């Protein structure tokens, strides 16, 4: 009799706790951050395709499936280091074929633009405004410098220009100050 009572009591407890745990696992579920998401967050989202994949997310998926982590020139060493930490692999220098380049933005020489909208279709982040047979222009703040609009332009009126340095983004590169020391007269 005692045994039965004990079994029943334990069984009841097990059911109650099971129900509580089951409820908690639904109610307080933590959305786990899948690996692809984490990798995608590290990538610079230029969507430039220099890695050989059509955008950052496909490359993130490829990395998650074991592709090399050093194929992203816009991300540079910082991104590679972060990816290495995340993936538990050794940080490698950027792929020899690719070089980390200065950050640039597209600039449309507006008087040469014929309004063909080809660059608008190419831009992965919708950073070009314009309409058919109207002049197009680049929203500089939104341009990721991915280069994808340059090739489609039939009149070659798109330049990739480096972002001009301002005192806000200046990086205290002290060797570069053009100090002209005042000479004695």
């Amino acid at each position, binding site marked *: 009799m005692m045994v039965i009572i004990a079994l029943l009591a334990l069984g009841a407890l097990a059911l109650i706790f099971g129900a509580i745990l089951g409820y908690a696992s639904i109610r307080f579920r933590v959305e786990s951050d899948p690996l692809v998401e984490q990798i995608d967050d590290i990538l610079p*989202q230029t969507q430039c395709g220099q890695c050989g994949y059509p955008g950052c997310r496909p490359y993130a998926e490829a990395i998650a499936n074991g592709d090399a982590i050093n194929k992203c020139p816009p991300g540079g060493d910082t991104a590679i280091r972060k990816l290495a930490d995340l993936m538990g692999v050794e940080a490698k220098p950027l792929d020899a074929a690719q070089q980390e380049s200065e950050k640039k933005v597209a600039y449309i020489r507006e008087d040469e633009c014929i309004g063909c909208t080809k660059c608008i279709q190419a831009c992965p982040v*919708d950073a070009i405004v314009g309409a058919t047979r109207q002049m197009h222009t680049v929203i500089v703040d*939104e341009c990721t410098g991915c280069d994808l609009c340059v090739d489609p332009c039939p009149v070659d009126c798109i330049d990739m220009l480096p972002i001009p*340095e301002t*005192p806000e*983004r*200046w990086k205290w590169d002290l060797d570069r*100050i053009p100090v002209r020391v005042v*000479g004695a007269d």
Partner: protein
Amino acid sequence: MQNLLEQIQAAQLWDFPGGIHPPTRKALTSKKSIAKLALADRLYIPLRQHIGVAGQCLVKKGDFVLKGQALSLADSSMSIPVHAPTSGLILAVEDHTSPHPSALPEPTIVLEPDGLDEWREREPLDHLTCSLPQLLERIQESGIAGMGGAGFPTHLKSAIKQEVECLIINGVECEPYISADDALMQEEATTIVKGIDILCQLLNPKIVLIGIEDDKPDAIAAMQAACKQRDHYFIRVIPTKYPSGGEKQLIQVLTNKEVPAGRRPIDIGMVMFNIGTSFAIAQAVLDDIPLISRIVTVAGDTLTQAQNMLVPIGTPVSALLNACGFQPQAQQRVIMGGPMMGFTLPDLSVPVIKTTNCILAPTYQELPPARQEMDCIRCTACADACPASLLPQQLLWYSKAKDSAKLEEYNLFDCIECGACAYVCPSEIPLVQYYRVAKADSRQQQREALQAEQAKARFEARKARLEAEKQERQQRHEQLAEERAAKQASGSSDAVAEALARVKAKQQDAPTDRETIKAERERLKQQARAKQAAQTDMPPDGEAKSPIASEVSTAKEPADPRKAAIAAAIARAKAKKDAQSATTSDEVVSSTPAEPADPRKAAIAAAIARAKAKKDAQAAAPDEAVSSTSAEQTETPEPTDPRKAAIAAAIARAKAKKQKDTETK
């Protein structure tokens, strides 16, 4: 808290960790009265002289401006205007070397003073009677930014809504050499106190603490005298130690409260203003003098006359130095700001701006340039000196490794860049420079992360849009295909029958169709013939004839009653005119004897000509009438005008078509 307030009122002082005691070298300048600098040949006024965004430039090349006139417009809350320091001509608005360590060119207004120093109209306010928004507006419009060095827009800081426990006025001025605030307090204590009154009105603090270092006895005396009437203003004399003038450090010294990392002083109920700022506020409100000049300490052993000067904003540093007897050495360095936190100027055309408190031209012996940096020996002298209780050597380590995560962990952004660590470093490591680079990198990374987020959002939005468009297109295609299929499925036999019926109907119509075409062709031919006839009949001057003809024809025209009416009206008018001219000519003929020879002859000739024409016309008229009646007999209306004929033909065609259509139906 009450306890703390009591302690503060009981003149208790506290201390902050670290700090250093470099030679102050203030005696060279602090005892002298403030000299007024003569106007330079050119003033370079950068559009942005504060933290925030530049105002919109209001002037262009060739404009004449008055002293105190706004040169830019504060079009957002984070921007403040700049003003003309004197009257004169705008020579250009162009890029000029900025008074920033980067020395990058920034948009600058170049002003050529005319020497008259002519003021614009001024409207002094009475701060006791005007409203707070009015005061804040005046402060913003006067272009006042924190004059201690950071240059934060004052109107933002003084518009705080939170409850303010304690208003602190910073007259500490702890950096060596600088004595600009000291001199200002000695000479303008009453105005400064008026500025503090205005700040009290805006912020309503419980107490006002004025912190002054104990190496400025004259300033302390002057301020004490000026504050005598105000019993909640406390002057606190604090021991000389660098950097007690730092915002967070001074709060700690005066109130024993520490501003939490990443927070602002207002979060613990404190607001701090510089002596110079409160002076500028008083001037702006009470005298309507915008921030167009400031006190600058010009010091260094290469100057024969080191002194404090009242300098118009925009004066090039070279003019300032020359006025003080500058004798440059070889490899002369000129520093803007103090020896601890200042920066070396790239050239001397850089202007003095709102935040410039000192120009230093030291000799080589006085302030030797940095020597070769050696390795860190882990002596921890820097950690002892750090006023923010950071670990400078760890920060150096991670700065070199560019490990932003670790730098954040070690609170890099709490570093106030005071330079105490570099000052005490036996290995002469320019620690602050490393931190500055690391901070700039970190900010860049933050910016990039933000941009990446934006780019991702935009990319995804675009993808979604393209997908939606594709789906829509597909849906439309499917729908159309369905419709087509439905049509085919539901009534394929009907459709065939319909088509057959159509073909039959067409065949039946065909003969009538052909007949109408034939008739049409016949009609057109006759029309052409009639026209030809009319043309051959028409005499060279058919002026008189045609109206009659048209009258005849229109009278019989059945086609369009309105058109007929118009034509009839025209014909009538013409006939009338003709009749008139005929009568006048008759008169002329009858009155010829009375007229002089020459005009008479001419008139007779004219009359004869007219008579002939009339006669001709009358002779031709019956012919015309006959032709038109013949045209009428061919069942189609026959107007003489070819255009009219064409219209009529078109109408006939349309009618025929319509008829045919109805028949087919």
